[in-house]
């Protein structure tokens, strides 16, 4: 299987071989996390001059990408050749003509890149960037939500690792009673609530049908998630700290388990500035499910590379795009690469390093194949509404039950502002 994928990747590279000789100058906008991968490209392709502009990668739905393209559109110049975004929903605007300017995103299938190369992506990986059969971007990494737990701590406390959300909540009760201070996750960033909990919990709070946006935070499946969060915030097994904040890092040795994305591997556990886990302590397990419900999970980003339709060096852009998603050394930039051959290599390397206990490869593969497809990718993010309504609300002692109606309204308002119809 792996050989086949490698062959596909190789043939894709061979087919693109004229592009390998491409010369030219390209401007790339990407965040600091992507910088080493871009620098690796520069080292391997000295014939292409790269101007890397480091920005925030639009993280937290800051809108940097769209803002700067809007400015370039208005000016009629200044477009980059390649852009990286941590968000999955940019295709919604980048695929459209705006104020009479051609869509920014280059259609990548239909001849721009070889279909054989595009077929090398993990099935479903390009769904968030595919509109009406046109592929507008290449996924950098897949970010399915799985369940991470500290095997050593659980064994020490004599607990079983939960497999369902119900068991996860019950574990929280035991932990709060018997080992106060230890905790099971965080909800202080704007992405965890929507993607890790509501998306994984199959809550229909962020859906798009054509030009219609739907959100129902009072749906039973959403209310269940809200109740879980409220329960665990109340007994302090869910912290309101940000995963990347000083106070989370200071208490990271009390983290017993956490549902979270595949990229937590590099960004959190193997990060000296994060959890800084000891080899062999942590297990990547299959995602948590609700008892008796579909075995589905959520997805937290997994950035996207876009090519500019304005580029003057399309061959250099092609060379770069193929390299950045499939080069086994850097693809995925710390997470699970979206390109299958690179993903297999990454999983193999992770498994053989023995850093994670348990069947790392199986857990991630299962998670990657079970992302719930009921979640929408409209031209705005649930994160802004979460940050505006929920984060300060929870910090002020309110509950999801108090806040979810307001949150829903804020999302609907945002949807309306960018042109969706709502109920």
């Amino acid at each position, binding site marked *: 299987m792996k050989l086949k994928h490698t062959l596909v990747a190789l043939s894709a590279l061979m087919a693109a071989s004229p592009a390998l000789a491409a010369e030219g100058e390209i401007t790339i906008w990407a965040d600091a996390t992507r910088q080493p991968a871009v620098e690796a490209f520069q080292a391997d392709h000295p014939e292409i001059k790269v101007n890397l502009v480091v920005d925030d990668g639009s993280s937290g739905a800051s809108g940097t990408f*769209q803002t700067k393209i*809007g400015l370039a559109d208005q000016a009629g110049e200044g477009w980059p050749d390649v852009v990286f975004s941590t968000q999955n929903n940019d295709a919604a605007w980048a695929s459209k003509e705006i104020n009479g300017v051609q869509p920014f995103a280059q259609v990548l299938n239909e001849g721009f890149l070889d279909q054989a190369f595009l077929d090398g992506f993990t099935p479903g990986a390009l769904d968030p960037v595919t509109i009406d059969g046109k592929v507008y971007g290449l996924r950098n990494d897949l970010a399915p939500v799985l369940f991470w737990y500290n095997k050593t701590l659980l064994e020490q406390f004599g607990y079983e690792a939960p497999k369902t959300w119900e068991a996860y909540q019950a574990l929280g009760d035991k932990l709060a009673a018997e080992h106060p201070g230890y905790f099971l996750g965080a909800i202080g960033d704007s992405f965890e609530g929507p993607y890790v909990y509501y998306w994984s919990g199959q809550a229909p709070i962020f859906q798009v049908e054509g030009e219609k946006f739907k959100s129902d935070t009072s749906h039973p499946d959403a209310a269940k998630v809200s109740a879980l969060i409220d329960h665990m915030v109340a007994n302090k097994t869910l912290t*309101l700290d940000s995963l990347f904040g000083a106070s989370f890092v*200071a208490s990271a040795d009390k983290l017993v388990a956490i549902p979270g994305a595949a990229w937590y591997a590099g960004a959190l556990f193997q990060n000296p500035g994060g959890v800084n886990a000891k080899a062999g302590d942590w297990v990547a397990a299959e995602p948590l499910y609700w008892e008796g419900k579909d075995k589905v999970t959520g997805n937290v980003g997994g950035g996207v590379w876009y090519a500019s339709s304005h580029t003057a060096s399309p061959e250099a852009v092609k060379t770069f795009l193929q390299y950045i998603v499939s080069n086994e050394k850097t693809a995925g930039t710390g997470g699970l690469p979206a390109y299958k051959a690179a993903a297999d290599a990454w999983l193999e390397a992770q498994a053989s390093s023995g850093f994670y206990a348990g069947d790392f490869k199986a857990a991630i593969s299962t998670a990657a194949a079970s992302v719930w497809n009921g979640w929408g990718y409209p031209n705005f993010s649930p994160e802004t509404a*979460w940050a*505006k309504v929920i984060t300060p609300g929870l*910090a002020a002692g309110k509950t999801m039950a108090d806040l979810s109606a307001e949150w829903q309204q804020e999302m609907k308002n945002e949807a309306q*502002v960018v042109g969706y119809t709502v109920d």
Partner: protein
Amino acid sequence: MTSLDQNAVRPLTGGLRPRNGSVEKAQGRMGLIFVSAYTLFLVVFGILPSLYAVYLAFTKKGAFVGIDNFIKVFKDYRFLPAVEHVGVFLIVWLVGLVFFVVLLALVVHSIGIRWLSSSMRFLYYIPGALAGASSVMLWLFVLDPTVSPVGFILQAFGITSLVSAVQADRLPLVLAVIAFWTGAGGWIVVMYGALNNISKDVIEAARVDGAGPVRIAWSIQIPLMRKWIAYMVVLSFAGGTQLFVEPRVLSQASRGVVSQDYSLNQLAFLYAFKQSDFNGSAAISLLLLVVAVVLSVVFVFRGGLFERA
């Protein structure tokens, strides 16, 4: 001068007059040269963009649409909250600014020890040398209790995280403190200069009449500083309505807890770059301009800015 001298000079006066005129002319020319650079920038970066905004605000895709853009903006659910945010911030900030700047200027002015007074003025001025965004960065550290050097003060107010420090009801105060810290120093120096302009005789006379420092400040110094205070209010008001950098940086740092649509200028920004609606954006900008101009006119005439002393 003796009369002899005057007589001696008289024949020359006919010849001097044009020379006097040419001095005035030369000064006028110099003035024009000094002003021209400013005027050029004003036209290129102030007047032309404003005219472009007027054009954009009343059109849509190049066609005249009357006040449609304004109506759309008024109906936007984010508009009134943004007006309220900016309004509350302006009140808190301007009142604080006037009070503390005048007070601190009076205090510094009354310090008799020269080196102390001048080093105080220098200290006040330093934060003003930092650009807006970088001073907000500094405040991010001050406001986050986990890393703040004055974390214990924040904790005493029940603030345990950056999120609670920038919560909606505290935000006007937080923004006002940041704005005061960056902007007030320069104004204190200006006010100090204004105080220096007040004739010592007047103060001396008041003192002889038995007025203490408070009475002198209230009845003589502050009324004589009226123009400068009005000047400060006009400029600060114009700057304050354009609140943008502080909430924008706080928004990114607090991962969106300070919303991206907090102030009117941010809303205009979102209109232009999130919704690609430059017409709506121009409508908001124009509203800001009208409000700032109207209130500035009030302060200019009330404050007697154009009266000759």
